[in-house]
């Protein structure tokens, strides 16, 4: 894809108590890296051993690999079947406990990455883009936020729905009962009333004529280690109204939403010197960002400096990080996850998967008992 157009139960026993104990001596928390590969497998990777613990078959044709997590980390909700269906899959035994088929009759419904779960784990949200297939034409219908009760299990139907803007991609639930919607702007919708508020203006920002409109990109969700939603953008500040591209200052920026409060900070971060597909915040220091694409990079946004750039052997769309902030996992595109030391960005390992990750999320599920 292009940037220019510019993510604790008895069943632990069979998973291996030994691995669990060796993984986190100071804590019983266990982290699992989750991703989806073609043709349709959800991989559960033990982050203590960096081995694939199990691979779960996902029904339906490949979707986009978008993954939303249950708050207890035990269930992964995966967008499948050409982005029309959502399956809830136990990461501990691969049981499928939840299924939504959004399309019905002659109305085909797609969700572009946009699935998330409420912070109390009771509701699943999708942004639906419906099209009615008529004999002689397609009728484009209005997009909406659909709300499902997870307790409804297999064959769940929406219990509420609210109109939303077009072009919404990744979404995330806040602890305040809203869902952050990444689209032309970053907005938030109240999941009870449908009221929408502006979080950070992007297409509608007004910073005067010297700032170019931002080019934002929201494809992957990966802020679970810092409980945030991060929307990167690029922009340029011109010297004067002649808008000379050669003398303009080119910047990376970001809108970063605190999912506890629903509040956002927007800032220019580091000079726009190379392409980054996704940025990630270090859980130990919110001034440190990591980015992935053709390079793995490390940035100090308090100093507006890029600290380290590590060349990668091929493009990786996505990345995530261990809870202690020491280990970075870089994935997406092909069939290997590259593992790096977060201090030096040196490669320290890799995980080979059975198929390409393509656009899939790379998420961390933490099981805390």
């Amino acid at each position, binding site marked *: *894809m*292009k*940037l*220019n157009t510019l993510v604790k139960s008895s069943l632990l026993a069979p998973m291996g108590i030994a691995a669990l104990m060796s993984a986190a001596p100071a804590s019983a928390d266990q982290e699992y890296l989750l991703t989806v*590969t*073609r*043709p349709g497998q959800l991989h559960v990777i033990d982050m203590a051993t960096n081995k694939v613990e199990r691979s779960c078959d996902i029904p339906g*044709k*490949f*979707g*986009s*690999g978008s993954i939303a997590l249950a708050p207890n980390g035990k269930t992964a909700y995966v967008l499948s079947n*050409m*982005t029309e269906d959502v399956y809830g899959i136990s990461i501990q035994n691969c049981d499928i406990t939840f299924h939504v088929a959004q399309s019905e009759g002659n109305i085909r419904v*797609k969700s*572009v990455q946009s699935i998330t779960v409420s912070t109390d784990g009771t509701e699943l949200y999708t942004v639906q883009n419906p099209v009615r297939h008529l004999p002689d034409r397609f009728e484009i219908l209005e997009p909406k936020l659909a709300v499902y009760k997870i307790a409804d299990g297999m064959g769940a139907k929406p219990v509420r729905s609210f109109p939303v803007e077009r072009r919404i991609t990744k979404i995330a639930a806040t602890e305040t009962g809203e869902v952050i919607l990444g689209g032309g702007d970053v907005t938030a919708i109240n999941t009870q009333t449908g009221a929408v508020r502006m979080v950070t203006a992007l297409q509608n920002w007004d910073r005067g004529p010297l700032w*170019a*409109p931002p*080019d934002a990109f929201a494809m992957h969700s990966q802020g679970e280690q810092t409980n945030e939603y991060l929307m990167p953008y*690029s922009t*340029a500040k011109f010297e004067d109204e002649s*808008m000379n*591209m050669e003398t303009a200052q080119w910047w990376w920026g970001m809108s970063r939403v605190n999912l506890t409060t629903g509040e956002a900070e927007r800032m220019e971060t580091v000079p*726009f010197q*190379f*392409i980054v597909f996704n940025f990630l915040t270090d859980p130990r220091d919110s001034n440190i960002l990591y980015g992935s*694409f*053709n390079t793995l990079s490390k940035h100090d946004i308090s100093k507006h400096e890029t600290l380290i750039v590590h060349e990668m052997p*091929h*493009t990786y*769309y996505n990345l995530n990080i261990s809870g202690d902030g020491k280990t970075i996992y870089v994935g*997406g*595109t*092909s*069939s290997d996850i590259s593992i790096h030391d977060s201090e030096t960005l040196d490669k320290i390992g890799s995980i080979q998967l*059975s*198929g*390409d990750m*393509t*656009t899939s999320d790379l998420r961390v599920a933490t099981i805390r008992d």
Partner: protein
Amino acid sequence: MKHLKSLNKKAHLINQAVSPEDVEDVVAMQTVVGCTATTDPGWELDPFGGLGSLCQPMESDLYGCADACWWPAQVPDTMNSYPDWGEGVAKADKDWRKLDGIFEDGE
């Protein structure tokens, strides 16, 4: 075009490319590089006017362009029309040769 002002580098380059004196430069690129003539999703300029920031190699980006219907002119749209295009090819970088073109009417 004379009433429109390009706001980013790519648009600026497009403006340059449509000027008649630049057409010859484009026509002069007659060498087919790999399979770019038919399926390379990265056959364009990156935001810096070069090729270094395009996805590499193109096999890494192949399904990313098809599954998300991102680049439907160059790769089949697996989200809607051709969901089986990648069947049997789980790893594009290993088995890209098995990925066939789309032939209507079973030709």
